[in-house]
């Protein structure tokens, strides 16, 4: 299947590119770790307060780290003309876009997932909330990449699109933030989290189907 080949060719290429510019790619992860570790220092020796804040702090930092990483999604492709070549490919652009978003998530979302339990421990999050924290991150970080891709595609043609990108994307991130940190918060209190997790899963599935199309359309507009 040439289409599946093209999809994996994009994923492979973007992973290779990320590997060749490791330092740049580690930025969001570094930011995530830095913000979360600074909180206990600023708040002081108040374990109970930190424990109560943990879900919110971890999730806000993860969200801002995701936002920070977004700009690189299409920027270099736009600047060196690779994006034009993607547009001219006989394969549907939305599938290629999905490949790019997937690679982007592997590079920026997955590392967050791996360090989050460590940081949660550091903040004193109860152990019973760990599985929920993981699950919420697994469901919501790809969601952030998918939603963010629309915003990046719209602003990639602008010289200073960073500000507009945040304004466009943050309102769409708010529901994700509410349900994800809400789930972790409830799990820490020993309450059931089925509803929040189900809603996140539904949002992810919906985004997987719906976001590649507007992203592809926005990219076409940006290249114009």
């Amino acid at each position, binding site marked *: 299947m*040439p289409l599946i*080949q*093209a999809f994996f*060719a*994009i994923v492979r*290429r973007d992973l*290779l*590119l990320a590997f*060749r*510019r490791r330092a740049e790619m580690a930025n969001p992860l570094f930011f995530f770790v830095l913000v979360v570790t600074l909180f206990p220092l600023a708040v002081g020796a108040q374990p109970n307060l930190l424990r109560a804040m943990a879900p919110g702090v971890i999730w806000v930092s993860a969200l801002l780290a995701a936002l920070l990483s977004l700009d690189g999604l299409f920027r*270099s492709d736009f*600047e*060196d*003309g*690779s994006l*034009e*070549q*993607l*547009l*001219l*490919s*006989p*394969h549907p652009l939305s599938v*290629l876009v999905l490949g790019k978003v997937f690679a982007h998530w592997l590079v920026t979302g997955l590392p967050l997932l791996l360090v989050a339990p460590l940081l949660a421990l550091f903040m004193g999050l109860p152990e019973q909330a760990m599985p929920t924290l993981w699950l919420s991150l697994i469901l919501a970080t790809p969601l952030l990449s998918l939603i963010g891709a629309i915003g990046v595609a719209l602003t990639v043609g602008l010289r200073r699109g960073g500000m507009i990108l945040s304004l466009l994307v943050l309102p769409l991130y708010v529901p994700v933030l509410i349900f994800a940190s809400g789930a972790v918060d409830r799990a820490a209190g020993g309450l059931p989290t089925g509803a929040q997790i189900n809603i996140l899963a539904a949002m992810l599935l919906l985004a997987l189907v719906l976001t590649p199309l507007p992203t592809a359309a926005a990219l*076409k507009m940006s*290249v*114009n």
Partner: protein
Amino acid sequence: MEHSSSAMLEVAGLSCSRDDRLLFSGLSFGLRPGQVLLLEGSNGSGKTTLLRILCGFREADGGEIFWAGRRIAESRYFADMAYVGHADGTKKELTVLENLRFALALGHPGQYSIDLALQKVRLSGYDDSPVQSLSAGQKRRLSLARLLVTHSILWILDEPFTSLDKQGIELIETLMDEHAKNGGMVILTSHHDLTFPHLGLQRIHLDSCP
């Protein structure tokens, strides 16, 4: 919509304006297999804009483009054409080979294998060099190697001769000539006059379009 004409690529009544300035209007031409079309005109006369319309990046304000008798959106046009623009479209962190493999994965395999194409553009031996270590002219030749490894009937080239030396220019002209002789088509813009006495060469001067 069917549109009968002997030409493979048919442009009918194309017009485009930018910032209230009319670039061209009522532009019509046809291109048959084996023909080369050279777009001429001063800076800002709309050469690149016309090429971008032909690539589907930009909507024309009026007119239609047909490929093999059908509107381009309904035809195999995008599987049959290839574009090399001002930006090379190659990734500078990847090697020559990785770039061409990726181009091949996106399109359909063409006439030449990667090795053969690199030989053609005199880049053999550079397989594993990262693109950022190549000179400007070598990068240009690499972006043209992409045309050879993927299947394409129509080549759209925007200023293909920039940053090429004399041998490089000759090389590109030979490649275009071979492509045309094999039934391909080329549309290009250039400030440099073609030295190749190509039989099927058409010229369009955009300044003279009202």
